[in-house]
């Protein structure tokens, strides 16, 4: 029984990391209808910034803020410099650019920071109570809840959030009411970058820091976003947590750790066969 609880709770914690990266994917998808395959790599690169600052004895909180700021600005810049000129490009061209970005950012990180695996500190060790969850895991849970609450409040209660929702559903009418759509796209990319960077900093103490650290997580996050419904923030979080728990249980009791990713992806396909728009996705997102 204790073993089962342990598997479920660590599944939830892993799921939170997938959920956070999935959230970043959803933010970009909602405003551009593209999935940024390089989101995880961008998060990894930002996490290195934090690692270097922490290595230079900068306090964790300052390094955290600097990392999130770096991710925000670089996300917005990628939109402005790379994506905006491709605004009317065919979907396949955009996908190709995303794949290229993935490889370029990963190689750049290897070139600049090296390929050796590094450890990364957690600020949450003091939260450990000797219960089922370690301190860092409690911290992951709390951070995920906080980020989701902050994003929900932003989208629901601020005029800027309203404008971003408007652009997601009706870009043309949004322009007609005077919204500067291109600025909001930059902002979406910035927010996605920041959320992704938080996911990276939460994952790094568990998976360790190296240029490939986010590759596996990205597959789960992608699956989580699709299962949840690619245009739904709540769906991304629920999808991430479901996937995390399912993966752990399958790994422990059904197929062993080697096949757990495969089984998680089989589950994703099964969900999509039954509900093509994902658990929380809107049908209109399927028209493309």
């Amino acid at each position, binding site marked *: 029984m204790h073993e089962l609880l342990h598997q479920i709770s660590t599944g939830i914690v892993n799921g939170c990391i997938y959920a956070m990266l999935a959230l970043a994917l959803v933010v970009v998808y909602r405003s551009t209808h593209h999935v940024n395959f390089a989101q995880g790599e961008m998060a990894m690169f930002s996490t290195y910034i934090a690692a270097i600052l922490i290595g230079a004895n900068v306090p964790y909180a300052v390094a955290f803020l600097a990392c999130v700021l770096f991710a925000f600005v670089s996300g917005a810049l990628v939109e402005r410099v790379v994506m905006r000129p491709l605004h009317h490009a065919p979907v396949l061209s955009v996908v190709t650019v995303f794949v290229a970005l993935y490889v370029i950012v990963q190689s750049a990180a290897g070139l600049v920071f090296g390929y050796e695996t590094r450890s990364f500190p957690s600020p949450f060790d003091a939260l450990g109570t000797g219960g089922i969850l370690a301190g860092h895991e409690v911290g992951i849970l709390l951070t995920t809840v906080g980020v989701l609450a902050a994003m929900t409040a932003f989208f629901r209660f601020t005029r800027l959030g309203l*404008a971003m929702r408007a652009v997601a559903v009706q870009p043309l*009418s949004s322009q007609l*009411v005077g919204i500067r759509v291109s600025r909001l796209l930059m902002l979406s990319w910035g927010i996605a970058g920041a959320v992704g960077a938080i996911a990276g900093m939460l994952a790094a103490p568990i998976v360790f820091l190296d240029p490939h650290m986010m590759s596996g997580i990205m597959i789960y996050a992608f699956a989580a976003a699709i299962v949840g419904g690619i245009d739904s923030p709540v769906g991304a979080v629920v999808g991430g947590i479901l996937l995390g728990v399912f993966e752990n249980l399958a790994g422990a009791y059904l197929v062993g750790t080697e096949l757990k990713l495969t089984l998680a992806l089989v589950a994703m396909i099964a969900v999509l066969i039954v509900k093509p728009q994902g658990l929380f996705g809107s049908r209109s997102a399927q028209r493309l």
Partner: protein
Amino acid sequence: MTSILTVRNLYASYRSLAVLSDVSIDVPQGGMTALLGANGAGKTTLLRAISQVMVRATGEITFDGRRIDGQPCDAIARAGIAHVPDGRGTFTELTVEENLCLGAISRRDKAAWQQDMVRMYDYFPRLHAYRRKPAGLMSGGEQQMLAIARALMLSPRMLMLDEPSFGLAPMIVRQIFDILRQINTERQLSILLVEQNASLALELATNAYVLESGRVTISGPANVLRGDERVRRAYLGQPEETAHA
């Protein structure tokens, strides 16, 4: 009468398909200008060209004394032109209240736009009943009212309406046009109206233009056009009247 909007020698095309050629029109300050013409004559395209949305246009467009041609669509909206597009452009997934807030999204005068929101609910009480529900749940007529209210929330200097009567029951059309007349006279808001129902449009408008195959063929004060033989035959459907008189 001074013009709030002047369009001179406007050419417009979708990709390689030319739609408007050498169009010049004037919308008088505080007046209502009607654009008449058959389907495909270029009425919708003219509105889009003024808003710089979805169409490539060249020519001179002056609004309120300033050249606006070549500016992006959102800047033209902020300059004071509110465009109610064909198909209404409702944010159907968002609530009615959110739709109205979006209309005012470029405004910084919070107290004033919140007051405007109250006024919109006075003009269109049905919107108040639906204010917390998704706008897509409302009927076509109610959504048209919402589209007009959303445009008015911009506090525009000019309102452009693309076939507000399209697909609506005559009673609803009457209701909407009564409000438009009221807004036009009370607030001195200039209106550029595209309308299939020519007799209704000429009844309200101060001046009118007839578009045929992308060119202005007839223009003048609305009361003159009402008596114009060509307009009567083609758009008012009363060819026999003079013969019997």
